[in-house]
């Protein structure tokens, strides 16, 4: 009974800056210095108060063209293409009411979310309205989002995010910072408080993208949580995270003959890392049922591998760096149907 009401409560704060009161001319140009603040007009004797997002300069900055503002926003080019378009669209719409209308329009056209996905894990924390987000991989391992909300404005925001982020790879999604919200002119408060529905929505979407990646990397079972296994999850704040890895130290040795991909992986790692020990294990059979696996053609199902490397090349490098090294070496494979690597990377001293 508690399920629907147990969401923590708060207002998804949505503010529009009344554009008619600003003097900025750079509204239509997609640039970094978009800090829209209404300036108290000298024609009126009224003080206006605006909620101040913590990352932005204080409200009474008179000049619109202060490119070296104290905080630089994430450049729009780093955003996924759809999101860039959306941002530009919102920038071109000046009237706050029109922005709302645009939001509501997005919301209206959002693909409905099946009620069986309206679960606890899919719920966005910190919204008075109920918001659910679902994420899954398509065949190309891009993240696809679906969302819903009982509040039309929140649904519009969710739709905005869904439209902007859906169909993109995990790394691109994880790179997005909430800065773009300022560019939208929706005046979303960017303080990561419990109450910030929009921020939490974005975070949840990124978290889900991350965990899709992790699950895919992991291979067969759910990640073991004994002390030996290490899951590095980099929590997103202002920096884009590095890749997430799962280290599986339970090396189950099964002797499975390696196919062509397996051989290529071996060769590459041998050549570049000159390991003391190298084990490459094909565990694709464990994933034979995956939709993703079914989709990939021409590799005889060589999609999931366990790799154990002991090499001096890892000396002085953090776990994440080590895994990244391996990934980088196997880029080609990853692009051509290799879905997941479970990596154990040690130095000789650590064995």
């Amino acid at each position, binding site marked *: 009974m508690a399920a629907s*009401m147990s969401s923590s*409560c708060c207002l998804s704060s949505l503010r529009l800056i009344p554009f*008619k009161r600003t003097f900025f001319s750079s509204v239509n140009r997609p640039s970094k210095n978009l800090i829209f603040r209404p300036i108290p007009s000298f024609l009126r004797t009224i003080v*206006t108060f605006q909620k101040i997002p913590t990352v932005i300069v204080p409200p009474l900055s008179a000049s619109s063209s202060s490119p070296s503002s104290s905080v630089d926003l994430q450049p729009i080019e780093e955003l996924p293409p759809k999101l860039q378009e959306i941002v530009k669209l919102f920038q071109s719409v000046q009237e706050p009411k029109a922005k709302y209308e645009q939001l509501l329009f997005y919301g209206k056209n959002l693909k409905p979310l099946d009620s069986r996905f309206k679960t606890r894990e899919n719920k966005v924390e910190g919204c008075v*309205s109920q918001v659910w987000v679902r994420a899954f991989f398509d065949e190309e391992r891009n993240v696809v989002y679906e969302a819903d909300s009982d509040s039309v*404005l929140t649904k519009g925001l969710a739709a905005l995010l869904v439209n902007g982020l859906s169909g993109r790879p995990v790394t691109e999604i994880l790179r997005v910072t909430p800065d773009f919200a300022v560019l939208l002119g929706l005046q979303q408060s960017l303080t990561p408080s419990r109450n910030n529905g929009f921020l939490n929505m974005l975070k949840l979407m990124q978290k889900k993208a991350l965990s899709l990646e992790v699950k895919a990397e992991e291979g067969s079972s759910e990640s073991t949580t004994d002390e030996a296994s290490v899951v590095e999850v980099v929590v997103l704040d202002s920096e884009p995270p590095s890749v997430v890895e799962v280290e599986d130290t339970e090396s189950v040795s099964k002797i499975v003959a390696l196919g062509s991909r397996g051989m290529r992986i071996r060769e590459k790692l041998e050549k570049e890392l000159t390991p003391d020990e190298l084990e490459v294990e094909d565990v694709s059979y464990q994933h034979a049922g995956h939709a993703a696996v079914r989709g990939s053609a021409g590799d005889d199902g060589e999609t999931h591998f366990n790799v154990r490397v002991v090499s001096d090349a890892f000396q002085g490098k953090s776990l994440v760096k080590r895994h990244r090294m391996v990934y980088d070496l196997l880029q080609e494979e990853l692009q051509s149907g290799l879905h997941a690597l479970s990596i154990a990377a040690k130095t000789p001293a650590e064995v």
Partner: protein
Amino acid sequence: MEGVAMKLPSFKSLAPTAISVASTFSIRRSFSVARRSSSLSATITADSEPVSLGHRARKDFRILHQEVNGSKLVYLDSAATSQKPASVLEALQNYYEFYNSNVHRGIHYLSAKATDEFELARKKVARFINASDSREIVFTRNATEAINLVAYSWGLSNLKPGDEVILTVAEHHSCIVPWQIVSQKTGAVLKFVTLNEDEVPDIDMLREMISEKTKLVAVHHVSNVLASSLPIEEIVVWAHDVGAKVLVDACQSVPHMVVDVQKLNADFLVASSHKMCGPTGIGFLYGKSDLLLAMPPFLGGGEMISDVFLDHSTYAEPPSRFEAGTPAIGEAIALGAACDYLSDIGMPKIHEYEVELAKYLYEKLASVPDVRIYGPRPSESVQRAALCSFNVEGLHPTDLATFLDQQHGVAIRSGHHCAQPLHRYLGVNASARASLYFYNTKEDVDSFIFALADTVSFFNSFK
């Protein structure tokens, strides 16, 4: 050019005279006697239309005179927190500027002064609710802390397995959660009174629930969602008949009407300063002397002790026993100033005005199509508080509140108002709430209704 509508010197109308001994340091506005005597009756203006209390009071609240998002601010969220008149702000400022010093500890002049003012504030609060002794007032951080104090101090030492604590489903979380925690620790059982068909807690059910097993009845005086009030005097009689105690959550009543603890005969009563024109960070617990005397400490530390040894300590008498550490001195003094301010207007006057406003608000709101207001209908026998929690068919309260704020500068609240069980009972996730205080006017209500109609039509056009 300064963008401030009203300048400070003109706030003369309702600033209270300096009652306290600290007048040497007070920079409170002096107050003409003539005006004071007539301030309570409607002043006749040039066009011989009586100026309402709301209009007169507004002048003392600078914060109300501003624009938000391009529209005049219409503040309708006083149930969440009230605005503070200039005199209260001055009292706080004064304290820090002229005699800030730690209380109860020092010998020197400033600390003696601070102590005097602090204890005077306690007396003012006691007088405000007609407590028989100022030692029955314990300063806390807010009403929530006060309830926790009773729960942990009185509750843990008095509740046994099988004992019953009676609450209603309409209670604020602060009057549910502490009892849940304590009942888990003690094995006591919580029982909840539900609503009747008028959407008020069922008094008959409450009466029937009270039994030999009941040890405590903890209920609101005025509901922050339903706008209804409970007949505390009667409830106290029923509870005392079985030897149970009564705790009254008076957060929504003390600021708006005369509350007389002796008349109510409640055992405990709590309220928050910030809802009654006082600053945040201070509230109080009223407890009958004999009860407080028997209660063990809540928080330990300085101030609440008598003698401290390494292996044990002895404790001070109440109220000090429950006031560990340095209190919010300035805030307490400012709360005293708030009591002065309200008393100067007169709580009966405030209440009378608000009853009128409440009726106006309800009628206007009820006339908007598709609006569903929660709580009882106002009538001869039923007086509502000046607040309405409501929902508009097909429109989420968050959307409503956002649009009202963004397009019209109208500040209402949307959410569960710290009453999730109540909303669950009513079958909704959230509601919008407009709440008024004596500084609101009928024009505020009109602005709200206008804005509401605009909002509804905007969202409807998207369906």
